[in-house]
C-alpha cells in the first residue's frame, strides 16, 4: 500500500448518513435538487428548468449539494440511477430531509451531513473528494492526489 503523499487541502467532519468510503471528482450544486422530475435516472442528468446544473450528470461524481426538494419520488429516481450505474459515488449535503436520507440509503453510497464547515463554501466542482462515511470525514484536494 502506498502512502498518501499529498495532504488534503481541508478535512471536513460531519455525521454519517450511510457508511463506506468512496472518492472522486466533486460536483457542487448551490441549489437544492429534485429527484423525480428533476433528474433523468437513465443518465444521472439534472433536467430541472432553470437549475444551475441543468444538462450535467452526477454519475460517478461526489455530489455536494444543499439538500433534496420536490417530489417524494426522490429516492425512487436515485435508486433507479443506481441500477443504471448512474448514481453518484458519494454524497455530502447540508439539510437533512427524508428524501435525501432514504435516497442515500437505497443508493448505498457513503454519505455525510451535519458538517463542521459548510461544504458548499469549502468544496468546488472539480476538486477531488474522499468521503469516509464511517469516520464522518470528507477530505478535499484541489487535484487528484498521487498515491
Amino acid at each position, binding site marked *: 500500500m502506498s502512502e498518501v503523499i499529498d495532504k488534503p487541502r481541508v478535512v471536513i467532519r460531519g*455525521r454519517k*448518513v*450511510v457508511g463506506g468510503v468512496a472518492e472522486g471528482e466533486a460536483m457542487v450544486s448551490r441549489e*437544492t435538487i429534485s429527484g423525480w*422530475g*428533476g433528474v433523468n435516472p437513465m443518465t444521472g442528468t439534472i*433536467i*430541472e*428548468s*432553470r437549475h444551475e446544473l441543468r444538462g450535467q450528470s452526477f454519475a460517478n461524481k461526489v455530489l455536494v449539494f444543499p*439538500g*433534496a*426538494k*420536490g*417530489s*417524494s*419520488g*426522490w*429516492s*425512487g429516481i436515485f*435508486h*433507479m440511477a443506481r*441500477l443504471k450505474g448512474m448514481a453518484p459515488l458519494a454524497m455530502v449535503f447540508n*439539510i*437533512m*430531509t*427524508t*428524501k435525501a*436520507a*432514504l*435516497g*442515500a*440509503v*437505497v443508493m*448505498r453510497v457513503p*454519505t455525510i451531513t451535519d458538517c463542521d464547515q459548510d461544504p458548499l463554501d469549502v468544496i468546488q466542482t472539480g476538486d477531488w473528494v474522499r468521503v469516509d462515511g464511517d469516520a464522518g470525514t470528507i477530505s478535499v484536494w484541489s487535484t487528484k492526489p498521487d498515491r
Partner: protein
Amino acid sequence: MVTLTDPEKAMLDGADGAATQKAMELLIRYAEALGAERFVETNNVAGVPGSAPAWVKDYYAADGGDYRAVFSRFDLDSDEVVDVPRMNAFSCHLQGGMDPTLWQEQGMSEDAHANFQSDEAEVAAHGIQILKTCTPYLAGNVPVMGEHLAWMESSAVVFANSVIGARTNCEGRESTSAAMLAKRIPDWGFHTDQFRLGQHHVDVQVPVDSIFEWGMLGYFVGDAVQDTIPVITGAVSDASLIRHKHFGAAAASSGGVEMYHMVGITPEARSIETAFGGAMRGERFVYDAAARRRIYETLNSVGTSEDVDYVMLGCPHYSIEQIAQAAALIEGRKVHANCALWVFTSRAVKATADANGYTQILRDAGAYLMTDTCSAISQAVPKGTKVVALDSAKQVHYLPAMMNIEGLYGTTAECIDAACTGKWKGRLS
C-alpha cells in the same frame, strides 16, 4: 442509534416472516440515516408498492423479474428475494402509469398495458387499495388530526400535515413499502411537535382569493422558504379544499414545503404565536403585486409560442367540484382540431363524474376524462405536442422540463378557451 421495542426486535429477528424482517432492516438503516431514535406506529400508508416499468423487471431477471423480485430487491432494497405476503398496515396505492381504459389514446403499447395490468393484480392480491391517485384524501383515505401516516406524494403530504393536521414526512417508495409490512416509520420530523412549528413569515399584501391566485402564492412560498415551514398571514381568503390542494402542490414543487401554516385558516395556526410556537422568527417574505407578477412570468417562462396544442387539467387530480366547473365551461363547445384536452382524476371521483354526466359532456366536446395518472407521471402527451397549457403551477414546473415542450400557466377558464381555440389568450389581470 435507534431503540427498538420488543415487537420491533421480534420483527427484526424474523418472527413475522422474512419480508417483514427485510422491511425492518431497511427502516433501521433509514432511521439511522435520519438520526431518529425510535419508530412511531402507523396504520395508514400510501405509496407505489412494487409497480415497475419493464426495464426494472428486466434488471431483476435473474431473480425472476416478477412482482416478488421487484418488491424484495427494489422496494425493500433487500439482497435476497423473499416471499411477499399481504400487507399488514392499511395500505393504498397512489398514482400509476396509465389510464386503465384510455391507455391507447395515451400512446401506451400493448406490452406496457399488460405490465400495468399484471402489477395491478399483484397490488390487489397483496391487500393494497387501488386508489391510483395523488389525492388519496379525495378517494376514501381521509386521515384525522394527529394521526401518524407514512405517505408518499408531496402534494398529499403537505395537504395532510397542513390542512388536516395529520403527521407524515414526505416518504419515499422504499420507506412506504417497508411500512406497509412493519407498520412502523421513523419518529422524526413531522411526527414530532417541535418540528411542526413555523420557521419563516410570509406577508401576503395582494388579494389571494381564487385557485389561480392560491397556486401562484404557493409557488412563491416554496421558492422563498424552500423546505422550511412558512407561516402565512395577510390577504389570503376563500379557503377551500381545492385551493389548499393547489397551493400545497405548488409550494412542494418550487421548494420542498411539506407543511405550512395559514393563520386563522389551518388547524395548527389559530394565531401567529401558535404557528411559531412563540414569537415570530426567521425571515419575512412579502408577496406583493411585483412578486405576483414575477411568479406569473416565471410560470410562463418556458417558451414563447401561443399556439396551444395540448391542455392538461387535473394536477393534483381534479376533485368533483373542479370537474363540474370544467364541464360547465366546455359544455356546448368543441376542442379545436389542432388541440387536445385531457382531464385527470381518480377512479373514485370519476365514478361520480360518470353519474353526473360530466364525463360525457367532456367526451362530447372532444376531451377525455382520464384516471390513475397524469402527463408527467405517465410521460404521455398527445402525439406531436409542442406547447401545453396548464392550470397547475406544479404541472407547469414539471411537465415542460420532462417532455421538452413549452408550458403556459393560467386559469382553468383560460385553459379551456385555449383548448377550444388553439390559441393562448391568458393574461395577468
